[in-house]
């Protein structure tokens, strides 16, 4: 009987300690409730918001939905390789196209990380200036992710705070409402970061270049206003950017040269760094490079794009052409002459690429060249365009001509240019017209050549309107402005979000 008793006692003991026995909490990762408690948590959380910007991820296909789809480029690569890009290039765009799936997913992950910071960091007891900087960064990045999503997809769900899984069924907002929200994000970003800087000028650690700044928030706000056709807001905001001391680089090419990463013209750049694990270098260097240099050869410039560049009577091209594309008879990189057999169009783009002397073929997909999100030249063109639209043509040409001046003056500063030291006769003369229509065309032309292959061309084509777009795509039978002004909402979203509506025509 004694044994029975022991067993019974053992059972009773067990029952009483059931709760404790079954209580197992996560080891290692933070349960949500344990995070967002300290200053270092806030810093770690905002760092993660930057990752979705990066081109270290092959899924970041911004170049497909901005450049390949536009009249600046064709798909390139082996004929049947990445067939889905070909479909986009031909305006046979279906909602299950992998390129749009991935870009949607990457940028919304960015939004979700920013939302966590914006929701929880305000309640952390921490250094006020740092807190404001971090909140400003999160607003800025969320604004940026929405800006891209909104331009690509149009009417998109606006998710503005972390949701419970049960509530993740956010309906589309109208594109104009999304723009309004992007404005507000950039304004908040600006205010928080300004406050932070005013409270403590050293709130940005010197070793951490590449964080969002008040100037960057202003610049993207100006661009948002421009896209919204709020001309006067765009012009005045662009003007305010000037106060931050940005300058045009004397040599245009230095904006796409790793030695001059984060230079004075660069307002915001996506940062890349080689030889890290996990990879934090740019994969664009492989995707967009010719096969002969161990690239994949995508995103090849069209003749139409090359034709856009001005040429003097002596056949001297706008120097930006050779800074932007490789073409016959010219140096590619590292004293190697470009070979037209490298590309189906006879051209390859250069802005996202580095010479083999910097990044060898063996680590092609791990380049350290940054990616320009917005640089001062674009701010000047925003200002010019906005002023022109407001019919203030005389002021508009000032900003336009600053951009043209720098372009032609490369001849004074870039010793690699043939005829270095003197500006070739008649090259990129100042625009003098005051006719609004002519000037607007000149500004649009200038954007195309100045900002070519910087992942925004398609947005421009669409926002210039039906007429411009239809003429740009006169060779594309399938193009329908009403449908193709935005891409379809990806299938995975349609299938899982009961409240979402597909875009018109898809």
């Amino acid at each position, binding site marked *: 009987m004694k044994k029975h008793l022991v*067993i019974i006692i053992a059972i009773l003991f067990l029952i009483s300690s059931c709760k404790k*026995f*079954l*209580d*197992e909490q996560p080891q290692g990762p933070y349960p949500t409730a344990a995070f967002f408690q300290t200053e270092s948590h806030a810093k*770690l959380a905002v760092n993660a918001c930057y990752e979705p910007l990066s081109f270290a991820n092959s899924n970041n296909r911004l170049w497909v939905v901005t450049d390949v789809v536009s009249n600046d480029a064709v798909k390139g690569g082996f004929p049947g390789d990445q067939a889905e890009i070909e479909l986009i290039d031909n305006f046979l765009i279906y909602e299950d196209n992998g390129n749009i799936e991935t870009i949607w997913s990457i940028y919304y992950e960015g939004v979700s990380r920013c939302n966590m910071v914006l929701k929880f960091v305000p309640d952390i007891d921490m250094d006020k200036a740092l807190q404001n900087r971090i909140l400003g960064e999160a607003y800025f990045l969320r604004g940026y992710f929405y800006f891209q999503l909104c331009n690509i997809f149009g009417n998109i769900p606006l998710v503005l705070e972390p949701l419970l899984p049960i509530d993740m069924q*956010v309906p589309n907002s109208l594109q104009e409402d999304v723009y309004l929200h992007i404005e507000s994000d950039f304004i908040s970003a600006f205010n928080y970061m300004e406050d932070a800087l005013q409270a403590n000028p050293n709130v940005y650690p010197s070793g951490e*270049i590449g964080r969002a700044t008040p100037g960057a928030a202003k610049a993207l706000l100006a661009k948002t206003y421009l896209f919204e056709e709020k001309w006067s807001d765009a012009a005045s905001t662009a003007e305010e950017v000037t106060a931050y001391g940005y300058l045009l680089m004397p040599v245009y090419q230095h904006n796409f040269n790793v030695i001059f990463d984060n230079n004075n013209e660069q307002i915001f750049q996506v940062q890349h760094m080689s030889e890290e694990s996990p990879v934090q270098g740019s994969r664009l260097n492989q995707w967009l490079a010719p096969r002969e240099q161990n690239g994949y050869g995508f995103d090849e410039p069209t003749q139409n794009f090359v034709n856009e560049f001005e040429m003097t009577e002596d056949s001297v091209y706008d120097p930006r052409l050779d800074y932007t594309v490789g073409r016959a008879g010219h140096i590619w990189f590292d004293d190697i002459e470009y070979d037209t057999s490298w590309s189906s169009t006879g051209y390859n783009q250069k802005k996202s690429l580095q010479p083999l002397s910097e990044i060898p073929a063996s680590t092609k997909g791990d380049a350290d060249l940054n990616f320009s999100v917005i640089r001062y030249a674009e701010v000047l063109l925003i200002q010019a365009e906005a002023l022109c639209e407001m019919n203030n043509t005389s002021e508009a040409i000032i900003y336009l001509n600053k951009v043209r001046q720098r372009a032609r003056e490369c001849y004074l500063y870039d010793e690699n240019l043939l005829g270095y030291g003197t500006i070739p006769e008649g090259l990129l003369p100042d625009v003098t017209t005051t006719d609004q229509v002519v000037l607007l065309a000149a500004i649009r032309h200038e954007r195309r050549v100045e900002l070519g292959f910087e992942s925004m061309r398609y947005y421009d084509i669409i926002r210039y309107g039906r007429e411009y777009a239809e003429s740009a795509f006169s060779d594309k039978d399938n193009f329908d402005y009403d449908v193709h002004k935005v891409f379809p909402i990806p299938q995975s*979203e349609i299938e899982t979000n009961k409240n979402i509506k597909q875009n018109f025509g898809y």
Partner: protein
Amino acid sequence: MKSIYSFKNLFFRFLMLFCITFYFIFLSGSSVAQGSEIKYTQTLQELFQHIENQGKYTMFYQNSQVDLKRKVRIDKNQTDMNKLLSQALEGTGLNFKLIDDHIVITAKRNINKQNDGPIVRGKITDNTGETLIGVTIIVKGTTIGTVTGLDGEYELEVNNLSDTLVFSYIGFVKIEQAINGRTEINVVMQMATFALDEVVAIGYGIKKQTDIIGAVSVINTKEIASLPVSNIATAIQGKATGVSVTQNTGAPGAGTAIRIRGTGTINNNSPLFIIDGIPTQDANNLPPDNIESISILKDAAASSIYGSRASNGVVLITTKKGKEGSIKVNLNTYTGLQVVSNLTKMCDKDQYIELYNEVAKNDGRSIISPEMADSLPNTNWWNEIFKPAVITSTSINVSGGTKNTNYLVSANYFNQDGIILNSGYDKYSFRTSINSKLSDKIDIGTNLNLSNATTNRVGSSGDGYGGNGGSVVRYAYFRTPIYPVCDNNGEYIDYYPEYAEVFGDGYNPVAFAEKYDWKNKENRLLGNIFINWKITDNLTFRTDYGLDFYSTNEKRFNENWGYNGRINNPNSLQQSSVTSSQSTWKSTLTFNKTFNEKHNLNVLAGLETIKNNLEGQSGSAQNFPDQIPSLRYLSNGTKNQRVDGWQSRWALLSFFGRVSYDYKGKYYAEIVVREDGSSRFGSNYPWAFFPAAALGWRIDKEPFLCDVKFLSYLKLRTSAGILGNQQIGNYGFASLITPGSYYPFGNNSLSGYYLSRHGNANLRWESQTQFNAGLDLGLFDNKLFFVFDYYNKLTDDVLVRAPLPPSSGNATPPFINAGKIKNSGIEIEVTYKNQINKLNYNIGLVFSHSKNEVLELYRDSPIPAGRIDNGIYATLTEEGFPIGSYYLYEMEGIFQDETDIFTHAFQGNDIKPGDVKFADLSGPDGVPDGIIDSYDRTHVGSPIPDFTLGLNVGLNYKKWDFTLFVEGVYGNEIYWQVAHDIEGFYRAFNVTQRVYDSRWTGPGTSDDQPRVSWTGSTNNKKPSTRFLFDGSYLRIKNVNLGYTFSDIGKQKTIIQSLRVYLSIQNLLTFTKYPGLDPEMQTSDNSSSEGDLAKGIDWGTYPMARVFTLGFNISF
């Protein structure tokens, strides 16, 4: 050069094996010659035991004739057995006879006659004429009896010649013969045809097979030991109804997937394994010949005693134990040669160039000139990556026991070289089992299994998306025949970038395999100790502590090589070590009593606690200045040295009980309950209750069936109950924030933390309601036996990951209880055993049919899975269809001309005659809209077979034995993903011969293979039924022919019996599937998606055909 080397290697392996075999024989031989020391006075029992313990002699005697307690005097220094025994037996009235290594003790008749009864003599043989040693002969109704000696003869003194003798022998039909005045009775015994008296392991106990009313499959383990496989799962393939076994890949050491009665849930569908009462993840560390029995519990009645872990079925494994008697040594060894079979026919050089030039012409590119063609090699990549490989296994079991203690010690060495270069598996396992009676009431015992396995891995499935490198087979498919393997210096050729368009740019598969340096080492310990206390005759208490512990060490070096060092740059090393321990403590109280000789009652009550802990560390580094193997250690990595560490725990606490009742073995009833608490469900709903009940009726015992002579057994069974599933990983209730995000600020890479997983605090158990109805029917003395079962399983509150819209971010969605899945099916097992003259034969057929249907999903959201291209998924799990059913475009044929294109739904601007035509099935409004787009994808099949079939045939003729095992799977589809690339034409990859033979070249030339064109590939390689194939197959899995030298023991050798066998595994496969192996169902790409994405073949390591020569030797 290469092939000669491997042949030499092979020969060397054979030699080694034979040396080992003879070494063991020599070893056991020498142990006999040990000296012996004997006391002056001891009992006969002590003497006999001592003689037996020396291992050479076995004693035979009748208990009734020998007074074991009698003291005898002997000479300590006497080594001659004859002298020793004659001295010892002097005056005892006993005689002895030395026959080889047997000592038979008999009474001197004239002296020791106790009642002067008559003597009956005789010889006992089986139906082949072989004498049977050790047959028990008892005078019916008495305890008088004897056993047959070595010559099969017996001599028994009976009271009078009108008694009846009962002859019994394990595995043979018991015979009763009245003496009827005879003094010589020779008996021929018949092998038992259907041994229903066998005891079968059930949850927390054992039961006679006739008393089982649940659906339990028992697997014949005799056949398993000689199969050339490393794990039990593969060995039970096709042996039981309702059990489907698939091997993930054919790579040595690859995992297996067992599904019992279909696919019940969207998450983990693996059954629970119990080895000697200890739950474990799998049984792969046990060598198949260590297994005594396997029971598979399939329905609620049988498995609900395991409650929350039982809904996927339970596999109960009992290992071999020592038996009372003299020491027995068994050596089982086999060596086999594995070769590849069923290769997909690929184009050779001339065919490839012809096709390339046709494509180039179609697409307007330059062709391969005849001059260039002449300079190119013709490489057959299959011949380069595959090689014949050796598989060997040797195990030694030493067992024996006394009345109070039995023991078994065994060792096994298994080695399998892969048929693909640089792959292999090597395993040592050791086992000890000791059981001892401390007193009449208390037994204690322990089982201990140790194993050490090393796997040499190469990429065996997938394209690398899963993170483990692409499959070697895949790259061999891709590689064009015009690439040489090596250059003149013997260096591997990687790639010609300037001619990539002609040669292709994939990996050199030979170099890819050879450069793999990926080893996985696992040490494992599985063991238990128990005390069994018979409190009274009816009440037994048992407590059992078990430990399942393993540690793994994985090391993978990614060597930098290739053109310009393009592959694995920078080189890197990843190393990780993981330890896992799971301790189980369980106690049961069993009450067993028969009331009034009619009411049999068995009651079980118990409790069980399980605690599981897994922890690990990993490190990685890059930029190793030297790549030689001795320097491949983390400290030599000059960049990005990183470390990681993790821990994860779960606990389960359970109370359970079972009441089994039967009335005269005719009417059966059973109730089972279990209450489980799990740490995995957080604090809101940790507990759940799982009840089940079953009824059984032995109709053949009813009086109205007594006269039906041909009917020997008929039982109706039915059961219903609720089971659970908790296999969702740990901490599903918590949302997690984890590191792992990095971003460089300037030149300073900083870490970031982000939400990686959503939790759900209201998680509950997944519950499965099961119904089973079964019928067991035995005819003609059970020579013909049917087992029939119907089941219906409804899984509710299925734990699924809520499909969240991507607009909410990428964090892993939470598990939620949503969804309903139905599985129903029938299982039929037919066995027939009989003999024709001296030929014994048995035929067994197992047939299983199951139907799977998803009834409900979270918010009706279908779940896409099985990525086959960027953002494209092959399967869609949707209401009304089976789990993981294929969702693709439907290929209608080939466009024959422009009119055909013009009149068909719009597929794009560049469609040309010869391109694939897809069916226009739907549109945004649910009706065909004249455009082929994603609305036209549809459910086109499923990787789940409609039925599976196993056929086992066994023949015995004299000393010959033969078995045949055929497996069939019917009605499943396989998506041949690798065909995207080798039949898709979008770059320079090699092409299948069937494309070469039947491609479209003009109107009317083909309606299944399109024109060859790279530019046409955008349309032609759309994920469609073009790449979906019938995965049905019929495979002769194993044929085995053996010969037993059973009378070898009469010669002057230490070997008692020797069986030699030849076997062929995977002899022939009949299938329409064009890929390498229709059995390969999973890939590394989608392993995390489980049953949602099965049957996608990216080019998988195939199973080998194995020719084996084996020996079973007992000493």
